[in-house]
């Protein structure tokens, strides 16, 4: 994935709580076997029914518990493909948050008041290294796990990093750590 350092630009605001991944990318678009091209289906029903308006800006500000429900990584793929590089919300659903960090879409957790102030400002600059969001409303700091930040900042591939640790996996298996559970190939 591409490294995340500074994300700067206009802010889109989706003033809704509990936005689930079924809304972000409805089920009929999960049948694709590719990883790209999901942007045009983002919020498919809501946008086409005129329920919401959304500009493809670098930053999306939204409500709490964003990304709840299905584990579909198609949701962050669609948001990214649409143009978003960061999402700012009071809270995220766990799996969605994890999925974002795997694809280089920066999730930023800030209080409801700060989220609204940034949305009102309409323009913001996110500095991952400093862990700050700078807008006309002022500079606010956000928290992010050090390890996740490190991987995002350098655009590191999780698999390559884990395979770097292959000796640890080998020895875990050799020591009997992998002996639990069924052997699926011999049913």
């Amino acid at each position, binding site marked *: 994935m591409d490294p995340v350092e500074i994300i700067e630009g206009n802010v889109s605001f989706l003033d*809704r*709580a*509990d936005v*689930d991944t*079924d*809304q972000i990318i*409805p*089920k*009929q678009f*999960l*049948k*694709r*076997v*590719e*990883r790209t091209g999901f942007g045009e289906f983002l919020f498919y*029903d809501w946008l086409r029914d005129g329920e919401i308006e959304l500009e493809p800006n670098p930053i999306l500000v939204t409500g*709490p*518990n964003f990304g*709840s*429900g*299905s*584990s*579909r*990584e*198609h949701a*962050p793929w669609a948001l990214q493909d649409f143009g978003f590089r960061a999402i700012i919300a009071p*809270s995220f*659903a*766990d*799996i969605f948050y*994890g*999925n974002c960090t*795997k*694809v280089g879409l920066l999730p930023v957790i800030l209080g409801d008041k700060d989220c609204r102030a940034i949305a009102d400002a309409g323009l913001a600059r996110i500095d991952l290294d400093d862990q700050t969001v700078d807008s006309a409303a002022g500079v606010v700091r956000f928290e992010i*796990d050090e*390890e996740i930040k490190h991987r995002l900042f350098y655009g590191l591939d*999780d*698999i390559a*990093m*884990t*395979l770097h*640790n*292959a000796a*640890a*996996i080998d020895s*875990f298996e050799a020591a009997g*750590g*992998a002996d*639990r*559970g*069924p*052997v*699926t*190939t*011999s*049913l």
Partner: protein
Amino acid sequence: MARTMFDKIWSAHEVADGLIYIDLHLVHEVTSPQAFDGLRLEGREVRRPDKTVATADHNVPTDGTPAARLIADELSRVQVETLERNCEEFGVPIYSIGSEHQGIVHVIGPELGLTQPGLTIVCGDSHTSTHGAFGALAFGIGTSEVEHVLATQCLVQKRPKTMRISYSGELGHGVTAKDMILATIGRLGTGGMAGHAVEYAGPTVAGLTMENRMTICNMTIEGGGRAGMIAPDQTTFEWVEGRPGAPADFEAAVKDWSGLPTDDGAQFDTEVEVDAGSLSPMVTWGTTPGQVVEVTGTVPEPATEPEERALRYMDLEPGRAIQEIQLDRVFIGSCTNSRIGDLREAASIVEGRKVASTLSAMVVPGSAKVKAEAEAEGLDEVFRAAGFDWRSAGCSMCLGMNPDTLSPGERCASTSNRNFEGRQGKGGRTHLVSPKMAAAAAIEGRFVDIRDWA
């Protein structure tokens, strides 16, 4: 030091700090194609095909289509065929359409005895929490993580916090595990369990069947929880024993598993207590599983803007009695409630009665094996005689990725897990209930309090 069941399983699987070994990886057609592509792109192999198993479920038509190449919808066909090809290329065992073991991934894992206490289990599906009912640590992952597990058999994970929800008291007549979890989510909210591995405990839970326990763990994700789990006991061991995947030395396994339950005095980050004896059958009224009331209740006055919007979408007005809500469809199925026990419960309500002429109702067994078992018991005849459509195994109308969907405006009583806008079909309106409540609603054409039925 006293440890929780979660602590025990987690520490037994730590390969390195923040790197967890995975004992069982379940794969399905929707969230895996891009992961296999990723492997090919990097020239990587599946590290442990012997700890991996695949099935087709989300896209499967439930009309009895016998093979992937015969799926009418082209995109669905391509997705299932892609899974079959990927599994062949990478040596992953697969139970695709037409296999006697095919079914919803969270139904076949336990059914084959693959789901066992003490394991770490992942799948590119949020309802993987289901498997925690066996005292396993099981959770949903995204496609990048699917690829990571395929390549390394490990997962980069932050240790979640722990929560224990203890249930006491005897469930009232007609009140089920589904009502326990719906009521719990209603109380804690859809984000109430966020960041936590949740252990469901207490005497009420200990008295539940494995199928009921799976229903509870299944819906952990609807409360925002990372994983749901229940201590293994005699009920658990009896389920696993004799199944194809069960350990060869079963006695030794039981001895190991008996050490898994949370030690007395172990500390949880959060503790919640629920008086299960006071619970009623529950019905959701809105567009999140947390928007739920007792069947004797009324549609609430909206307190927030999202609640107002939910009522508009659901076309309901505050104050309307739940039991006055008329239905167009009834769906009994999904990874939450499609096991043989669920079908037996529903059939017991349906037997000798007729589906209301105003609606159409369907039953979709969770797996080919559940279907065969139900047919051997004559449950299919009970449902058919009442006017239910008896289908073949798959995810079906839980998520409408296959031909089973709601039409715009249709209102459905569903035993599935999500009542999100459009989940069962664009414009469809979903009310989540237990299998018994769904069965009774099918008979009356509206919600009824199952407790009034003898």
